[in-house]
């Protein structure tokens, strides 16, 4: 099972190679993986339908209770089949859609990563694991929306979706952690049994708010719905897969998954039905105002997600059943319609419905698939969409408001379905930017398969109900539930009422389609409302943050090095002094401070006077010599106090440093007195304050006891454990050798950096146009001596 879930990541690595080896068949080859996985998941159907849940666990971070554990129950399986099934078709489709794109390999990689992450979400039994996969889908969605990264619009849309869903993800993580704290477990299978504890807990409302925030942003619920239409910047295969069939349903999935833990309370019902209903209306209302095919579909997706959230909020057995049927039905018809849109765009060069029409003769197969899928979307028998709509009406019959919402949404959905099918494929052919002809096999296979899937599921609704919908509904409700799913429920009682509502929906929808000229007027009238919407707040927040960042950067990062340093010194001074004052630290003079030997004093004086010499030196040579004295003084200090290793190392380094300085510093300019006297005085005052602080801190540190168990352990075990009598060396090469390995790596990097700085010259960069300092020799070749022009080009 672990292999099945994670194999997508392996496939992702292989995809670019596949593309290189077989550029024309990369899509088909890559699709093999999800296809095999789909077969695997289908093979699990009988077991899971029998009421069993498969579980697999692998300890990942056992100390934190984070396991890589997977569990497949009815709900997981329904989603896993959608992910792998649609994934197969989408990969084939992408191979055709992007056939001439050299970056197809990258697209396949990202799609496979996404698929694996999505499978991880739906099969994960550990909430932290689920969260990791959740964020992986966010990231792959970001990369896929920004696939055409050379367009600013795509980049912006990608960032928008990342920010919105990313912030939601953070909230979700907080919610998960709280849940884990309350229930004492992060394993879902355990947590699902402790719903009563959670619901009775005082933190319940916070958890609910956090989890809902995460789920709502991911599933594009009002008022966060705006990122989804923006995400239509992604290539169509991506929209079809991520932004209609699977990823946006992750939020819905999470709500369904946590229903036994968080659901059933008044707050849950109220919030979910309210936001779900609002999303339904806003989404469907905006959908019919669009002229871009993809945006029409995007907004109907928003509305469909609202429907799902609303149904989960209602929470009755019928409502959950309706949600599960609708999940399946929607994924089938919406996936198909998105791919149809992509094919139309691909073959005609436009997606604007006002420029499209009569394509049924040019693209017969695509047209048939589109019609079939649209029938399902409009909710006509014998499609699965019809059953989904019937059970949805039936579930809401007792709630007049919800019936009203559902009726309005479904009517507008019928209109939208007509737009994407009748408007595009019937009527008189219209001149399009490209001469339209049928899409290749790889691009009509997906729509046809999905549309036929919707038909088949409708015809074989009993089997689908028993094998998929029933187990899924059972897992959401937390109890075994037999689900009866029939195409024709009769005309008595509730079924009859639902059927009547369906009739009204259809008639009103078709009526509105023929009266479609009113939509642009409604759109114009309601346009000012957009300024109040969340999208405008999003833009205001983002631009406000950019402005703030720019302003504070202007002030803090003004390009003057000494300003930065002064800022650091002042901040340190203030913070440290505050701590010293608050902490009532008394500075005690070391007791034996007069105990100084003459040669120690001499070494200290050498260092001090050499330092003063460096400060006052007017020539570079003198300064380098002074610096050398400071270094040798330091080495002597090490020698005096029991550090012979340090002393010899310091001596060796000093020697090399001197050569380094002599080699380079002479090529650097002479000392100049560049700063004004007042600037120098300011620096001196700051520097002295900084130095004094360091002295004080040293004295404080000296007053603290310095017994180190570590040091004495190392000293006493150096011989016995590490066969070495030089404790310092033993620490370096044995006790702490991993640190040393890191340090020599740093050294290697520094050397490569130096080599690159010296040897690699950007071709356009001319050799210096300045005079060199000729004090050592002026014969260096290739260096003009005269300043020819100002360099600031």
């Amino acid at each position, binding site marked *: 099972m672990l292999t099945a879930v994670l194999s997508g990541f392996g496939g992702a690595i292989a995809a670019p190679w596949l593309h290189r080896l077989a550029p024309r068949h990369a899509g088909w080859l890559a699709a093999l993986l999800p296809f095999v996985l789909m077969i695997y998941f289908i093979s699990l159907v009988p077991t899971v339908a029998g009421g069993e849940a498969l579980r697999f666990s692998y300890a990942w971070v056992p100390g934190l209770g984070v396991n890589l554990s997977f569990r497949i129950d009815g709900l997981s399986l329904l989603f896993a089949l959608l992910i792998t099934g649609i994934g197969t078709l989408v990969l084939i489709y992408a191979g055709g859609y992007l056939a001439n794109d050299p970056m197809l390999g990258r697209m396949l990689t990202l799609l496979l990563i996404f698929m694996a992450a999505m499978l991880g979400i739906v099969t994960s039994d550990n909430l932290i694991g689920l969260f990791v996969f959740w964020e992986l889908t966010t990231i792959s969605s970001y990369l896929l929306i920004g696939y055409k990264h050379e367009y600013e619009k795509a980049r912006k849309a990608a960032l928008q979706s990342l920010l919105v869903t990313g912030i939601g993800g953070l909230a979700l993580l907080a919610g998960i952690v709280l849940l884990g704290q309350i229930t004492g477990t992060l394993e879902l299978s355990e947590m699902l049994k402790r719903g009563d504890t959670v619901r009775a807990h005082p933190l319940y409302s916070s958890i609910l708010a956090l989890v809902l925030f995460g789920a709502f942003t991911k599933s594009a619920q009002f008022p966060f719905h705006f990122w989804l239409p923006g995400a239509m910047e992604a290539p169509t295969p991506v929209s079809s897969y991520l932004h209609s069939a699977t990823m946006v349903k992750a939020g819905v999935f999470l709500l369904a998954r946590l229903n036994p833990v968080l659901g059933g309370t008044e707050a849950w019902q109220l919030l979910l039905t309210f936001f779900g209903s609002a999303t339904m209306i806003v989404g469907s209302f905006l959908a019919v105002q669009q002229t871009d095919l993809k945006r029409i579909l995007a907004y109907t997706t928003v509305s469909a997600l609202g429907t799902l959230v609303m149904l989960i909020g209602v929470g009755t057995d019928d409502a959950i059943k309706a949600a599960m049927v609708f999940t399946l039905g929607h994924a089938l018809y919406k996936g198909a319609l998105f791919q149809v849109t992509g094919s139309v765009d691909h073959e005609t060069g436009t997606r604007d419905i006002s420029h499209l029409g009569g394509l049924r003769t040019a693209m017969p197969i695509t047209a048939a698939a589109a019609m079939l899928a649209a029938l399902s979307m409009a909710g006509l028998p014998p499609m699965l969409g019809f059953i989904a709509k019937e059970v949805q009406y039936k579930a809401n019959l007792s709630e007049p408001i919800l019936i009203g919402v559902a009726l309005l949404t479904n009517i507008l959905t019928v209109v939208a379905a007509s737009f994407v099918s009748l408007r595009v494929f019937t009527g008189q052919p219209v001149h399009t930017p490209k001469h339209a002809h049928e899409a290749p096999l790889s691009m009509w296979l997906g729509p046809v398969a999905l549309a036929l899937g919707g038909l088949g599921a409708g015809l074989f609704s009993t089997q689908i109900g028993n094998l998929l919908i029933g187990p899924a509904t059972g897992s959401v409700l937390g109890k075994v539930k037999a689900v009866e799913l029939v195409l024709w429920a009769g005309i008595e009682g509730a079924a009859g009422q639902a059927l009547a509502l369906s009739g009204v929906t259809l008639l009103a929808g078709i009526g509105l389609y023929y009266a479609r000229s009113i939509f642009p007027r409604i759109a114009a009238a309601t346009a000012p409302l957009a300024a109040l919407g969340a999208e405008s707040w999003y833009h205001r927040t983002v631009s406000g943050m950019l402005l703030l960042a720019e302003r504070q950067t202007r002030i803090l990062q003004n390009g003057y090095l000494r300003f930065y340093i002064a800022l650091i010194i002042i901040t340190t001074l203030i913070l440290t002094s505050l701590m010293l004052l608050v902490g009532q630290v008394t500075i005690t003079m070391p007791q034996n401070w007069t105990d100084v030997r003459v040669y120690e004093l001499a070494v200290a004086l050498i260092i001090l006077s050499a330092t003063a010499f460096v400060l006052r030196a007017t020539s570079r040579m003198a300064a380098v010599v002074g610096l050398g004295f400071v270094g040798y003084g330091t080495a002597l200090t090490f020698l005096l106090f029991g550090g*012979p*290793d340090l002393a*010899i*190392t310091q001596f*060796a*380094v000093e*020697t*090399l440093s001197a*050569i*380094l300085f002599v*080699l*380079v510093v002479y*090529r650097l300019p002479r000392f100049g007195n560049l700063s004004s006297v007042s600037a120098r005085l300011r620096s001196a005052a700051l520097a002295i304050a900084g130095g004094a602080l360091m002295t004080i801190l040293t004295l404080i540190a000296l007053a603290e006891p310095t017994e180190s168990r570590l040091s004495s352990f190392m000293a006493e075990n150096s011989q016995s*454990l*590490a*066969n*070495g*009598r*030089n404790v*310092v*060396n*033993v620490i*370096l*090469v*044995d006790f702490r*050798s*991993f640190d*040393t*390995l890191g340090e*020599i*790596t740093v*050294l*290697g990097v*520094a*050397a*490569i950096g*130096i*080599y690159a700085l*010296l*040897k690699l010259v950007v071709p356009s960069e001319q050799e210096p146009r300045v005079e060199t300092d000729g004090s050592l020799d002026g014969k*260096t*070749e290739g260096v003009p001596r005269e300043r020819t022009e100002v360099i600031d080009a």
Partner: protein
Amino acid sequence: MYSLILATATRLLIPLMLIFSIFLLIRGHNEPGGGFVGGLVVGAAFTLYAAVYGVSQAQNALRFDPKRIVAVGLLVALVSGLLAFFQGLPLMTGLWYPQPLPVIGKVGTPLLFDVGVYLVVIGITATIMFTLFEVEGE
């Protein structure tokens, strides 16, 4: 910078410095010394050589590209740590050959690790100094 005295002195000094550096490396586990300082001494020796005879001569004398020496040194250090790992012990556990060898004393992976450090330090010193000499046109 060529002068006869310096050139002759260098000829004599360099073998001495190399021997001294190996001495420092081997005895480093028990007495002051070790890979770091040993490497620095070799680096200084070749810097001196380059200063007197020029970089290309020094490069010839060193035989290997200094950047490659850095890489080999890192690899040696890493392998010395991995040996324990492949024996099922925690990474970088010291492994020792039970019998002390003459002159060198006990031999084990920490010594090998120190050899890695030694090579890295030689490599970086030589890389830095050779490149600088070359670029600054000695």
